[in-house]
């Protein structure tokens, strides 16, 4: 699948009719939750497949059942997923569907009630995360505050920016700019870049609160 580059290190999925059709369904507030989950999962799978494409490979030769040699590739390096709770957890299964026994770390970031600054509340990560490629998972990238807080955590655990690939469903231009300024070498794979943020800081047109809809805790 080909892709278009927007900022450097930001990769957006090809805006095919297929993808637009999927987004039309998940953005539609009248659609039942079961539809949201099914079609969001499809978009997530596309994003994961594209994200995995950014991992390094080495040449590998195999012999087919026809006794013919085939020059192929094998993925280099080990990976793990790190989901930014709660919404990011919706993307874990998509990753597991591609990488069967992938290790999954989790980070919980919440905004401080007074200062509105994102604060780390909980983390459980593989001990050897500094040796792995990290697929950081969060479906919505608004201001980028939570994402950058998570990236800070990964860097503090010894990960290099080049090892981190942020997988995302909908990004705002502000979020991309903010992340890219602080972490220019972290790659971002997203399915679509929306217009911007509304005055409450939600992505617009967006789709509302991804975690609430996906897990059924919507008002």
């Amino acid at each position, binding site marked *: 699948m080909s892709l278009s580059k927007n900022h450097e290190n930001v990769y957006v999925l090809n805006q095919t009719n297929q993808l637009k059709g999927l987004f039309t369904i998940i953005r539609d507030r009248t659609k*039942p*939750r*079961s539809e949201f*989950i099914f079609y969001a999962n499809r978009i997530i799978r596309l994003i994961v497949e594209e994200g995995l494409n950014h991992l390094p490979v080495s040449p590998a030769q195999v012999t087919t059942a026809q006794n013919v040699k085939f020059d192929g590739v094998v993925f280099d390096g080990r990976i*793990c997923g790190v989901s930014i*709770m*709660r919404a990011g*957890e919706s993307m874990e*299964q998509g990753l597991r569907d591609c990488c*069967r*026994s*992938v*290790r*999954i*770390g*989790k980070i*919980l970031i*919440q905004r401080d009630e007074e200062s509105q600054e994102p604060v780390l*509340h*909980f983390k*459980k*990560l*593989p*001990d050897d995360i500094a040796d792995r490629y990290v697929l950081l998972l969060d479906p919505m990238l608004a201001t980028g505050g939570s994402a950058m807080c998570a990236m800070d955590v990964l860097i503090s655990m010894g990960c290099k920016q080049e090892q981190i690939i942020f997988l995302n469903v909908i990004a705002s231009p502000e979020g991309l700019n903010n992340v890219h300024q602080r972490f220019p070498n972290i790659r971002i794979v997203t399915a679509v870049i929306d217009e911007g943020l509304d005055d409450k800081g939600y992505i617009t047109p967006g789709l509302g609160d991804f*975690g*609430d809809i996906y*897990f*059924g*805790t*919507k*008002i």
Partner: protein
Amino acid sequence: MSRSDFGLNNVHVLRQTVYLLSLMTIIRDKDTSHSEFVRTSNMIINMLVQEALNYVPMKKRLIVSGSGGTYNGLEPAQKICGVSILRAGESMEHGLNAAFQSVPIGKILIQRDELTFESKLLFCKLPKNIETYLVFLMDPLLATGNSSILAVQALLRKGVPEENIVFLNLICCSQGIENIGKQFPRLKLVTAAIDPELNDQRYVLPGCGDFGDRYFGTC
């Protein structure tokens, strides 16, 4: 199913078939690989969910079959939702989803201080109108019961009647059952095994180690 005489009147242990015991052997074994642990846990979780679904109240439903005959059947009389106690409880969400499509999922994060053994509620997102649901509370290991008690208290604060809570669990400890049973005698517990004791770090013995670490591969 067999009943136990511990604090809770409603403790149901899965029938200890040789098949179940062979699965439990795999997850208890510290040498079991990560992928096999995940695969086997999922199978046991499916068995637990199947058993627990017998607690869903049913009402009569008369249907007409394709051959023109009538059948006095049943259908669920109450909505169900899952509430997982992060992190380990999240492993059980898929089992519930497989049985009930798009069941709402609430999440509660409780952290146990490993020095004082005191537990604290860190995060709580529950479905709206949860007091009308039958709630499947999910946590694979039940040790002292302190985390579970905090989780149940959070549910009660939202108006969920005690008798509407079914606790799904893989391995519990008799001490934990007593602690919960004293406070919430009308709670129901469905488990695959009751282990006799706890070690010095208050982990279930023999247990299976740290379920969350083993399932998500963060050990």
